[in-house]
């Protein structure tokens, strides 16, 4: 006699742990919400400081994400698809900013790209380019810290992708670039989008490297996290309001992106 097939339920243990994890992630947010002064929230968020920070955060994080794509994807491709010597060293170098405390990353950037820095002094004397106290500096700092997330995700995707599809494309008359654009990129699209989202989120939350390297100037380098830090000095309500804005932006973008991305996989 065969027992009727019972529907498999998720194990209780997994459910318990999952609930605890959700609580662990959600409670700090709730804490932040209880700290908010709702009556002044709108006024706080429409002050010039807050608006500047919002605008800069969006601009810088998007630029950093774009730069990461332009610089990171080719590197990921080289790491995944070529046999160049020293690749493991380059890979370690590429993920170094992930383990480096961001403030140290900022110091390193300053020593390298500051106006008197190793490379920075030449950039300044030859082209008049200067990063410290400029929005470009904030973008650079965010890129430095966030790009590893893209490189790692894309390289892993390229590695797990069946490389024979690229041979198929070549056999069908496609050159390297066409193959990359019409075969490789679409095939790693889910990972590319996930990596881009991660990179953007990391850039949006970047604090240490930005304040150290680019400085903390309203309207120029003062992104939301930096504004939160300063607001903590003398206006806690503003700090909470800005944090909530930061959270809201990231949640909205990540959730909508995820919906879209799952959609592209299914279709």
């Amino acid at each position, binding site marked *: 006699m065969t027992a009727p097939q019972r529907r498999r339920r998720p194990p209780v243990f997994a459910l318990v742990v999952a609930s605890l994890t959700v609580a662990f992630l959600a409670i700090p947010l709730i804490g932040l919400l209880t700290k908010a002064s709702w009556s002044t929230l709108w006024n706080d968020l429409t002050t010039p400081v807050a608006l500047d920070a919002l605008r800069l955060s969006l601009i810088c994080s998007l630029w950093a994400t774009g730069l990461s794509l332009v610089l990171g994807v080719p590197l990921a491709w080289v790491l995944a698809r070529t046999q160049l010597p020293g690749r493991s060293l380059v890979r370690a170098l590429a993920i170094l900013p992930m383990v480096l*405390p961001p403030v140290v990353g900022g110091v390193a950037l300053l020593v390298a790209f*500051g106006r008197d820095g190793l490379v920075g002094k030449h950039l300044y004397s030859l082209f008049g380019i200067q990063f410290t*106290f400029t929005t470009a500096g904030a973008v650079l700092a965010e890129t430095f810290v966030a790009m590893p997330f893209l490189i790692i995700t894309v390289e892993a995707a390229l590695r797990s992708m069946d490389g024979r599809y690229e041979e198929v494309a070549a056999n069908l008359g496609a050159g390297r670039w066409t193959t990359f654009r019409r075969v490789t990129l679409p095939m790693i699209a889910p990972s590319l989008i996930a990596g881009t989202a991660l990179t953007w989120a990391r850039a949006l939350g970047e604090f240490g490297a930005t304040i150290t390297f680019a400085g903390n100037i309203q309207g120029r380098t003062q992104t939301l996290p930096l504004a939160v830090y*300063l607001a903590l000095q003398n206006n806690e309500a503003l700090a909470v309001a800005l944090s909530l804005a930061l959270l809201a932006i990231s949640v909205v973008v990540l959730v909508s992106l995820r919906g879209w991305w799952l959609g592209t996989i299914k279709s």
Partner: protein
Amino acid sequence: MSSSPQQTSMRRPLIALVAVAMVAVGATGCSSSAASSDTTTTQPKVGGSITVSAASSLTGAFNQLGTRFQSAHPGTKITFNFGSSSALVLQIQQGAPADVFASASTKNMTAAQSSGNIKGKPVVFARNTLEIVVKPGNPLGITSLAGLNKANVVALCAPSAPCGAAADTVLQQAGVTIPTSKVTLGADVKTTLAQVTSGNADAAIVYVTDAKAVGHAGEAVPIPKSQNVVTSYPIAPVTGTTNAALANAWIAYVIGPEGQKVLRAAGFLPPG
């Protein structure tokens, strides 16, 4: 017992690293620091813009002063770059286009001077001193530094932060040692203070200006002058400034009656 600088610098490797980088950069950048004497503060017509790199504890007061200065001197623009004094020095040493440096400690100002990044002689424009902050209503009845031993947890700034070094001195002068197991170290004065206002620590030693900003979330307990230390806030133009006139005008404004009034309201002590 009381935490030694070596121990804690290992606990905070990143600050140590920053410090090392600072020293290294400072040593190589040590060149001419010819003291020029053009800091005369007449009332010339000033214009243009400057960037003031200031310690973050000055955020409130300087923002207020900046607005007032600009309306008093139409056509000028004061831009602030707030951060930790040590990071600000590093930026300046690496060529950041700052015009004025306002430091929360003489140590960082000296570092900037010895690397040749300061023009003329820095002037102290404000001072700060320490206070104990306890939970509202002072449930443990802490009324002195010695009373800190009644606390289960005391929040102090890390020794690498100016407030941490000052707190260490204060405790030494009072002959009070708090067991390391009862001490929590904050990265800066705000995180240290937050340990008390969030109820985790029973007491903290912080600057008067920060204690003043706490409001109802805590209660201040003064430290007697004999046991206390006073830290100075020096200000000076940066060597590379492209608008020395405005830089000097701003410094004069901060030192002057207007500036002092605002700084006093924020809880700072007068410079002399």
